[in-house]
């Protein structure tokens, strides 16, 4: 870990100004990822601006019927918020599928969007990694890549975005409100994270110095027919091999609206709008689900140790669509009954 200076911002303008006034600097939220990366020497900011105490922790109604999730609200406070539980239960499920209670108590919503990949090689500075050190090569290609991408990867990087919360967000499609040296702007969630291409060092489309202020959810929450299905190597405190967020609107057996997003398969939360279009107007049957699932993974590419994820993703999509249709959640996971 390298030495760094530290300050605590009093308001958003102060935070943006403070960060801009230092060279290699970073915003610090809950610190559940950044501090680890600093200890591994993966991140070496010379200055940290603590934004966790900024007045951005409210979860409040929006005039358009949506809900605003403050950037510094913790993951735990967000998941257990009454409005979130009632109106966006898919988000509640996704958040609770991630990390551990201790981490969710510390982690912030803004930080969740900003967390970095869990690629083994990204974390180990003794191995080449284009995301950590552009141009050094990708060790995961041809290496051990069980947790790596099958969709949208590039020859430079096959890392995945590790968040659960963001998979549900991809399905719910909020806008991300940010502020930076050039003022405030809103980014559609699907445009927030990016695919690696030739610039895998960039996880998202924020420009230098921009800070997340809130996530503004639209009114539609798919609160009746939804599911978040997460498949992993142990039943808690493990990142998704494949996860699926589904929201459906049904008229009898006919699907009238659909949202479908995958986690653990790409450099960003993978929302498939063409699959959503395929679902609309179709009967909610196994046949439909199988066809759509095959479509989603049609262009998937395995890298060796993650080849199984193509078939796993296909099956998981079918299961998630079934569960959402039946209004069921992932079976027998301890966290479902752990409301504090």
């Amino acid at each position: 870990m390298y030495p760094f200076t530290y300050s605590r911002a009093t308001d958003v303008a102060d935070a943006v100004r403070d960060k801009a006034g230092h060279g290699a600097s970073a915003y610090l939220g809950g610190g559940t990822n950044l501090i680890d990366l600093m200890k591994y020497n993966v991140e070496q900011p010379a200055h940290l601006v603590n934004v966790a105490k900024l007045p951005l922790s409210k979860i409040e109604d929006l005039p358009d019927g949506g809900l605003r999730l403050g950037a510094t609200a913790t993951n735990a406070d967000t998941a257990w918020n009454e409005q979130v539980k009632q109106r966006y239960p898919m988000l509640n499920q996704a958040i609770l599928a991630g990390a551990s209670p201790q981490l969710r108590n510390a982690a912030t919503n803004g930080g969740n969007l900003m967390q970095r990949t869990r690629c083994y090689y990204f974390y180990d500075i003794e191995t080449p990694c284009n995301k950590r050190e552009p141009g050094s090569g990708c060790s995961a290609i041809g290496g051990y890549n069980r947790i790596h991408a099958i969709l949208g990867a590039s020859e430079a990087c096959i890392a995945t975005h590790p968040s659960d919360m963001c998979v549900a967000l991809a399905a719910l499609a909020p806008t991300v409100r940010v502020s930076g040296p050039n003022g405030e702007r809103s980014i559609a969630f699907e445009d927030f994270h990016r695919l690696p291409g030739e610039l895998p060092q960039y996880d998202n489309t924020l420009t230098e110095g921009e800070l997340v202020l809130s996530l503004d959810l639209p009114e539609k929450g798919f609160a009746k027919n939804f599911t978040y299905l997460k498949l992993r190597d142990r039943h808690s405190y493990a990142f998704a091999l494949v996860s699926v967020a589904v929201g459906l609107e049904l008229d009898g057996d006919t699907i009238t609206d659909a949202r479908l997003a995958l986690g653990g398969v790409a450099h960003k939360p993978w929302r498939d709008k063409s699959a959503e279009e395929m679902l609309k107007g179709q009967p909610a049957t196994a046949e439909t689900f199988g066809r759509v699932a095959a479509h989603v993974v049609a262009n998937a590419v395995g890298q060796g140790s993650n080849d199984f994820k193509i078939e796993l993703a296909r099956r998981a999509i079918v299961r998630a669509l079934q569960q959402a249709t039946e209004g069921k959640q992932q079976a027998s996971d301890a966290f479902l009954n752990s409301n504090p």
Partner: protein
Amino acid sequence: MTQTNHIGKGANRVDGPLKVSGTAHYAGEFNVPNLAYGYVVNSPIAKGKVTRVHAEEVLGLPGVLAVYSHENVPHLAWFDRSYKDLLAPGGSPFRPLHTPDITFNQQPVALVVAETFELARYAAALLRVDYEQEPHETNLGTKRTEGYLPGGGKLGYAPPPPPRGNPEKAWKNATHSIEAEYAHGAQHHNPMELFAATVEWLADDKITVYDKTQGVFNVQRYLTGVFGLSKDNCRVVNQFMGGGFGSGLRPQYSVFMATLAALELKRSVRVTLTRQQMFSIGHRPNTLQLLKLGTNPDGSLAALQHHALHETSLFEDYTENVVNWSGMQYKCDNVKLGYQLAQLDVYSPQDMRAPGAATGNVGIEVAMDEMAYAAGLDPLEFRLRNYAERDQNVDKPFSSKKLRECYHEGAAKFGWDKRPLEPRSMRNGHLLTGWGMAGGVWDAMQMPSRASARLTADGRLLVLSGAGENGAGTYTIMTQIAAETLGLPLEAVTFELGDTDQPQAPLQGGSWTAASVGTAVKNACDALGQKLLKLAQKQKDSPLQGADYDEVEFVNGQLRLRRDPDQAVVLRDVLQASGETEVEADSTALPNMLKQNGYSLHSHNAVFAEVQVDEDLGTVRVTRVVNAVAAGRILNRKTARSQVLGGVVWGLGMALMEETIMDHKFGRYVNHNYAEYHIPVNADMPDIDVLFIHEEDDIVNPLGVKGIGEVGMLGVTAAIANAVFHATGKRVRDLPIMLDKLL
């Protein structure tokens, strides 16, 4: 029963309050004055040479005190024997910072010492080290035909017994036969507590070492050998451990580094490893096993062949007993057991909970399940038909063996009789349920051990033995043994351990601590009891006049006649009347070879497991485990049960998720952290029933105790693997059983 009858009851941990209140101090927590901090730098290559350590570049940082590497390490002991600790296998022990040669990835190459931990860590990050890389080999699969017999084994290693009968012919002529290969990768112990050593510098060549270790005397032996210190000037202390599981049996490089720096700098130094560095020390070796079994028409075993090959380092022949168990577990007259090593560019493996047995048990117990199915028999019935009444490896009877009772009581508790034989026959929607079982066997060992006991005039008893406590409950059971032997309440007894100033005790491992240290404690208390009887008899009109020691008993703080309990004296009064302020005795306990010689000494267990497998998604959930254990006398039902619960956690981890992944391109482990090396969490754990099967055995030792640390883990992994087969009809032979193997 009396109030001072403690053995077998579920006394609370006597060290519990210290642990939960943060007042129990661990090796990296002794804040001695004027402490400097060391941080280790490790090699990023698996093989080659260090060509240059650019120490001068970081020595200029204010507060950096020293950089040690092979370039400047002082002259230390020359001969290998000085570096050989009690568990060193054949070969040449690794000498940190000794040469520029790199023989494994993450090999420690330098130590940076600074005024603060943060500064040492920063300077270590800046330190440039140049390497010359050479090709390495870390893939056991490339060494299948290059296995060799180990040259010299370590303590406890027994080469496989010679073949008996004609195993190859019997296998070929068998009515039914199977042949299968089983594999698992490397696994790391991953105790919660990191390896750390705080070396307090007292004077020239005089130190006190607070080290994370399962054997303070082993560390003392190592440090005095390597650094030429006298024992009097090298006290080693470890009173508490946040888990060891075998990783602390041998001295780790953390204590070498801290001692080196302390002696050189003439000040106190602490070195704490990182979680990543915890993957640069020993591990359960990557192992391949080949099993060939055959049966006769009546379902008896006609042939049993078990061969194992595992990795070791280039410099040591690490050994463990993998295949021997198979030759004693079932009755079979045609047996061949083979065991070989292969050298790779990795660090030496190291004993990890139930070393060898945990590996071999998966081989034999999954193969027995496969064999049962090939013969069309229920797996439990098949085992009962091949029950071994004698240990055929050594042709001796067992001193006691209640495995049959483990099978029956475990099966009854589990409801095994309702199990349909056919795989895939229990289904609920997309969930397939499977039931599997397996047995286990481990040695009941006793090592030489010493203890002392001192009763003071206030009625308090202090018992000492330099044993280790990794959290299993040693403090508590020793307190129970001492208190019961001298008829005192638990609160009147203090047991202390983990200090080379105390009477010598063996390494804390092998499940032998309860038997070894327990017997020493009992003997010391009996020796003290005899002194107390003599003192009592010196008093005028003593009601105990003329009584022999075996005619009296210590109960409720009194010493009294067995045949007439009204004839009693109060212990405290005895001491006061005698004018003594304290009475002390010590004793050595040795295994009674004369008594044990004609017998095979072992603990046994039987495990029954239920799993649910999602047919579409391949996810496995263990929903029930019954573990029936016959391990002689159980000293404390509560801590013993906890230890077996922990064993089930370990077995489940080995079955479903634990594996240290080697990237052969780099010859480096890639998942070297808690996020990616998965050990079970609460959400993975099912309801666990622990049954202790009553077993009396006065041959193993006077206490009749066999130890449970290892046996509690055995059978679990195989039972789960067998249950997965029963659920899915799919036999997974390479652990861990992760979901992709069931898609």
